[in-house]
């Protein structure tokens, strides 16, 4: 006879309206999670690129048959020369096989590649704290014909800048999506207030405090946001899984960059939880605002 539902003095939200709102919240959560995931991943990749290439320089030896010494010999000479420079930790010439492997994505693995003149490369590890002056290094390498040193700074800076810009856009999308979801909840709370004006007025005149009536709307918004948020979470996890499979993303390498697995789970669960709290607060704000207009 008396049920726990009886604590809900307003009718449960209309089935059609609820389904629509749950779908909107689910899609918003999905978008927010993808934006958040993209932002965190881009930030992590930028950091990795920055850290991975800090202290790694490359000396390129131009392939040129007219030089007095063959390319491999000049690469060995360059490595020998660099090893004596203060701040250089290691300098190793790459074998022809290594260079061919590096170029294979562009040149393929045909036998004809054997005939192509390949440049020589020297992998240089420098002391990241006290690297040698690049101008000094260039001066010393001047005695090796066709040698040129690259500290990668130029393109690393570009990539990091691009990653940071994409990260900022992703965060902006996340914030916008959150704002739209809150507006949707506020609109739904207002619509419910309008639909149930008769019941609200009755509760008001028989002595229900504004907070008591507002709690009815909060409870409904919380239930809708939790359902929508969890559906969005499942949808986002499925999307990322399909994207990783379809585009062959190296998730096993990318995921550890984002932090320990528990922190990823915590962040993923936090989004629907934040959506639920935001929805509750938005419904409370909208209903209290309307109720204060009553005498």
């Amino acid at each position, binding site marked *: 006879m008396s*049920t726990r539902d009886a604590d809900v003095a307003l009718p449960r939200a209309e089935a059609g309206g609820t389904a629509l709102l749950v779908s909107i919240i689910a899609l918003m959560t999905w978008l927010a999670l993808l934006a958040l995931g993209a932002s965190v991943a881009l930030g992590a990749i930028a950091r990795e690129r920055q850290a991975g290439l800090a202290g790694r320089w490359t000396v390129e030896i131009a392939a040129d048959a007219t030089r007095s010494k063959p390319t491999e010999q000049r690469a060995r000479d360059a490595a020998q020369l660099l090893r004596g420079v203060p701040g250089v930790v290691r300098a190793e010439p790459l074998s022809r096989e290594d260079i061919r492997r590096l170029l294979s994505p562009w040149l393929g693995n045909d036998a004809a590649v054997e005939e192509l003149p390949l440049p020589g490369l020297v992998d240089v590890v420098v002391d990241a704290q006290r690297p040698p002056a690049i101008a000094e290094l260039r001066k010393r390498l001047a005695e090796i014909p066709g040698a040129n040193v690259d500290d990668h700074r130029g393109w690393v800076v570009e990539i990091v800048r691009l990653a940071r810009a994409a990260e900022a856009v992703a965060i902006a999308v996340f914030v916008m999506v959150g704002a739209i979801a809150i507006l949707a909840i506020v609109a739904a709370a207002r619509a419910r207030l309008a639909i149930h004006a008769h*019941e609200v007025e009755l509760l008001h005149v*028989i*002595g229900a*405090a504004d907070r008591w009536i507002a709690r009815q709307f909060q409870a409904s918004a919380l239930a809708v946001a939790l359902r929508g948020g969890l559906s969005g979470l499942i949808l986002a996890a499925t999307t990322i899984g399909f994207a990783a499979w379809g585009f062959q993303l190296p998730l096993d390498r990318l995921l550890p960059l984002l932090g320990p697995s528990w922190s990823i789970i915590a962040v993923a669960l936090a989004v629907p939880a934040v959506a639920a709290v935001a929805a509750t607060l938005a419904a409370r704000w909208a209903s209290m605002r309307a109720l204060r207009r009553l005498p």
Partner: protein
Amino acid sequence: MVYDPKHMIRFEEVGFRYGNGPEVLRDVDLDLAPGSFHWLTGASGAGKSTLLKLLHLADHPTRGRVEAFGEDLSELKRRHLPKLRRQIGMVFQDFRLLDHLTVFDNVALPLRLARVRDSSLRKDVGEMLDWVGLADVAGADPRTLSGGQQQRVAIARAVVARPLLLLADEPTGSVDEATGTRILRLFQELHRLGTTVLVATHNELLIERFPHPVLRLEDGQLGLVRA
């Protein structure tokens, strides 16, 4: 609640208008003593429902002074009003039952607002439904009940929290004579138990049968026609 026992509700030169319209209540002076029973009569449109609205604190007068349970409404903060409203039971002319709740839960509503514990609430609501003769339909949807039964549910809801003041707007308007008499007997019983009662009605027969003071509203002005 501490208030001057001589005055449960007191109106002094109260006026009320809807928006910029004409005054529907003018210079109303009213003093409801605790434990009194009054009839309120008047032609349709005389302002009975408006007066009841002000009496159950659902609106503020546009002029004049209203004192309820010792509190001057013009000085009372809005957040304190619900507590005063819970001291008043109101039987609406159109019942205003909540269709999505059972009969039991409709009657239980004022107790839930007063945060009465579930065990006590079940007992009180059960007794109240017994008293109005509706114990057997406690789990029913109010829409399935007859007009008389719905009216009794509305009465049970109005009195379940033992209000100090009971107001009723045409409680016998949509029921047959026998049910009307039965409803009035319930009010008489509440009055005997100490509840202050004010009933708005057109029913002269009931007014004759139950000889209590009669207040009459004419052109928005209130007068005592039978002491």
